[in-house]
């Protein structure tokens, strides 16, 4: 009896404590033991942490099929499901998590700014507080290497390409007319206001197969998903005024802003070399509506309207009274995008953008009316197989209709119009072979209906982490773009223009310091050529042009060495020649300068509640043709130099006073030369120097934000 009960007791005890010991060792992919990894059975309290030698051992009373989980920071979580008693003497290798800050990034050709970038060449605020940029994000990007300073134009000229070779996208959708119209020799500004964007990727080459119709560069802007609070912004500036309001509800938000710019008062105080009959006046408004659908879906509707007028007479060596140029432009842009997550790790992104641009231009006594309507439709699907493999593919369609109505001084009327439709599809794989080696491999096909042309562009980009703080990357790609409207309105017997990019990049990032060096070679083919002084209906056109651009871009940013100071330096060396347009021979175009350099410094003075900024821009002289020399594009203008300064002073948390001066020292820069059409009696073509309309530009602004929390200000608006 006693023995029986004893036995019962033992059995009970045993069954209560019938335990299996789970044990093994956890290492990284190279076999180095991982200490402190969390090892446990899913859905139970049984588990432990690994010891210094990576070994672990724990007991469980669980039976049958169980899932063992091993998790450790910076590694992918390991799962295995099997019968408990098989969980012994385990050798578990954890794979590196490729989503960490020290993992390699495929970055050849591109600069990132904004919150999601691992390595930020520009911070969100830099976009708008760079001295000399005058609140235009395009201006801030021109302090990055790979861009050429073309002071009289203001648009982005990238690596020997002209401004039309760069395309701008908002939330993946094309912006068709990103720049405000201006007169000759007056730099333009971007139409989009910078504070709508949370992230910017500026690619100077070798970009993803998702983007086409750009020979040199793409600028990708991501708009804000969700504003933080309700607020009203008021800006009073020497050039005009602006007002904005944001309203936020549970799943929706609406931001609207309007601005009125009139340069008249400024020009009366500081007259420039132009004779303004009507100074630049512009009225603009933007609205963004965001709507959250379920948990992850987000619909964004963005609309912008602007109207610009001016009338000016500019100096011209061929006519004593000068050339009169009048402009009335109105521009409408609409962009709708939707993104959502689908089941099974799929996600979808789709959108439509539409632009309508109308210009009524008077040149001397000729009148030109241009209307461009364009639309872009796109759908993109992504499948997230794992953090190491992701597949994106999609299709898009571009439609452009262009109409020109030209009335000469003798009342002759000419009409031109064309439709061009482009269909494109792309596929791209993002692959991480390990934390050290990653690649993007893509393919893009495009079909242009106007001239029945089909192109295929392969794009490959590989990055390898060469040291704890350094990495090297290589990129190769083919890029196609349709000839521009100026030619298509006269002729449609073309094929797409083409470049190939080859890029090698080295990057070193350590402790708030970034060094980048990038060498590239671009080969241009099928460039448009014509045989008259201007492209005309009667010109002969062909795609027989070609060219090359090669160079080296250097960038250094340091946020650490000097207290309260950040600075960056960039230098670009460019060697380019092309035979296109009506060039008689291969030559360096007049927009390309061999050396470009920028230095930008920002210093925070906390007890003055101020940020002061300085920037210096240098560009070596650009080529021009001197008819007295009987040589094409072989003379060089003088170097460009400008020092710019700004000062932002926070009066209180919501009031900011902002001062900015461009070209502080009033350096007399030269934009080029204009020669007489006819030689004088001595056989000499007289010339005049084309100089900026004004050497300096002053700007004073007062920005006031009214919000419930009294915390927000317009610092990121400047």
């Amino acid at each position, binding site marked *: 009896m006693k023995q029986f009960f004893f036995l019962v007791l033992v059995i009970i005890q045993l069954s209560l404590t019938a335990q299996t010991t789970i044990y093994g060792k956890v290492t990284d992919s190279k076999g180095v033991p991982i200490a402190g990894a969390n090892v446990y059975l899913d859905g139970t309290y049984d588990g432990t942490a690994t010891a210094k030698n990576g070994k672990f051992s724990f007991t469980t009373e669980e039976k049958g099929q169980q899932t063992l989980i091993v998790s450790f920071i910076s590694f992918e979580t390991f799962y295995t499901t099997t019968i408990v008693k098989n969980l012994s003497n385990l050798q578990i290798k954890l794979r590196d998590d490729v989503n960490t800050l020290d993992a390699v990034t495929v970055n050849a050709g591109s600069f990132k700014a904004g919150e999601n970038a691992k390595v930020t060449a520009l911070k969100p605020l830099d976009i708008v507080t760079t001295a000399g940029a005058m609140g235009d994000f395009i201006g801030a990007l021109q302090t990055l290497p790979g861009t050429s300073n073309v002071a009289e134009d203001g648009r982005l000229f990238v690596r020997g390409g002209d401004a039309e070779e760069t395309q701008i996208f908002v939330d993946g959708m094309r912006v068709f007319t990103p720049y405000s119209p201006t007169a000759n020799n007056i730099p333009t500004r971007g139409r989009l206001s910078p504070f709508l964007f949370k992230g910017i990727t500026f690619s100077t080459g070798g970009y993803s197969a998702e983007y086409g119709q750009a020979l040199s560069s793409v600028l990708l802007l991501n708009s804000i998903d969700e504003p933080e609070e309700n607020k009203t912004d008021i800006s009073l500036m020497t050039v005009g005024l602006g007002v904005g309001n944001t309203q936020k509800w549970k799943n929706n938000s609406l931001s609207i802003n309007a601005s009125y710019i009139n340069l008249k008062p400024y020009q009366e105080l500081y007259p420039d070399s132009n004779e303004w009959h009507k100074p630049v006046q512009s009225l603009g408004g933007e609205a963004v509506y965001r709507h959250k659908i379920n948990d992850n879906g987000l619909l964004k509707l963005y609309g912008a309207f602007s109207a610009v007028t001016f009338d000016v007479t500019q100096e011209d060596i061929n006519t004593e009274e000068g050339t009169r140029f009048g402009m009335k432009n109105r521009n409408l842009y609409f962009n709708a995008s939707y993104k959502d997550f689908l089941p099974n790790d799929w996600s979808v992104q789709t959108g439509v953008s539409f632009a309508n641009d109308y210009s009524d231009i008077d040149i001397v006594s000729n009148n030109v009316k241009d209307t461009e309507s364009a639309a872009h439709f796109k759908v993109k699907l992504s499948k997230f197989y794992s953090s190491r493999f992701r597949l994106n593919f999609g299709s898009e369609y571009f439609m452009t209709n262009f109409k020109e109505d030209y009335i000469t001084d003798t009342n002759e009327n000419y009409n031109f119009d064309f439709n061009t439709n482009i269909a494109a599809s792309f596929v791209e794989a993002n692959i991480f072979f390990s934390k050290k080696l990653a690649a993007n491999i893509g393919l893009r096909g495009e079909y242009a209906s106007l001239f029945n042309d089909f192109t295929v562009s392969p794009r490959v980009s590989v990055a390898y982490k060469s040291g704890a703080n350094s990495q090297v990357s290589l990129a190769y790609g083919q890029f196609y773009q349709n000839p521009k409207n100026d030619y298509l309105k006269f002729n449609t017997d073309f094929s797409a223009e083409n470049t190939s990019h080859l890029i090698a990049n080295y990057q070193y990032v350590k402790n708030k310091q970034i060094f980048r060096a990038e060498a590239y070679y671009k080969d241009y083919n099928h460039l448009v050529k014509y045989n008259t002084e201007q492209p005309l209906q009667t010109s002969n056109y062909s795609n027989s042009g070609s060219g090359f651009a090669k160079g080296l871009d250097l960038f250094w940013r340091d946020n650490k060495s000097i207290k309260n100071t950040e600075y960056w330096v960039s230098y670009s060396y460019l060697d380019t020649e092309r035979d296109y347009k009506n060039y008689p021979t291969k030559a360096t175009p007049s927009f390309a300068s061999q050396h470009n350099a920028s230095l930008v410094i920002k210093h925070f003075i906390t007890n003055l509640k101020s940020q002061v900024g300085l920037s210096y821009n240098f560009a070596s002289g650009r080529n021009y043709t001197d008819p007295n020399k009987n040589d094409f594009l072989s003379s060089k203008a003088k170097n460009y130099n400008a020092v710019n300064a700004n000062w932002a002073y926070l009066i209180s*948390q919501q009031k900011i006073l902002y001062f900015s001066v461009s070209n502080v020292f009033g350096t007399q820069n030269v934009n080029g030369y204009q020669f007489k059409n006819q030689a004088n009696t001595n056989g000499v073509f007289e010339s005049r120097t084309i100089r900026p309309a004004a050497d300096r530009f002053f700007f004073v602004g007062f920005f006031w934000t009214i919000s419930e929390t009294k*915390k927000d200000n317009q610092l990121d608006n400047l």
Partner: protein
Amino acid sequence: MHNQPKVMIFDETINSNIKFNKMKKIALLLAFVCVATISAQTPYEKGMTKAFELWKSNESTKAIQMFERISNVEKDNWLPPYYAATVEIISAFEIKDETVLTAKLNKAKSFLDIADTLSKNNPEILMSYALLNTAYIAFDGQKYGMILSGKNVAIYNKALAIVPNNPRVVLGKAEWDMGAAKFFGQPLEPFCKDVKKAIELFKKEEQTIKFYPYSGLGRANEILEKCEKKSSQN
């Protein structure tokens, strides 16, 4: 000491085992043991208690791992992932290496997201989201300050709208506002009042849910002390 009763019962069982003639009693005791273990402490309570002990004895990593394991069992309870995240965030404030910092905070965020799906608009979870942003701002104010401080203001406003009398929300907002006021050289008095209000709310708070993050009174007192010192100097 939650473990104590159980240990005592087991000791008694062992003692009783020697006395074979008291078998009935043993059987009863055995039954009682089972019942006692269940009623005294569930594995959840045991696990949570263990995790808090580890945290108290500066074994943050082990505490986080314990909370992680518990959250894999208690799939409907927001507290384990909330603590896994919050302990991770607090320990991230000492980190000097940005790679480690972002790895820790990314992990913390994934736990907070789990907690958030289990308990929507929970003010305590919102406070941890704000703390996570603060960890980034404290690491590099120039890089993260501009974007994340706006987000934090929004979080505090949202939480305050949901629970205007939650002492931790009132205190968190006051602390945040004091930081901004200090930078602009503005008086701190109005925020000292908020801290006082938080202290009163702390004292009134009914502590009914086990393992709920009721803490914060100590910190509030510390801040008030500093606050009063500053104000008396002026």
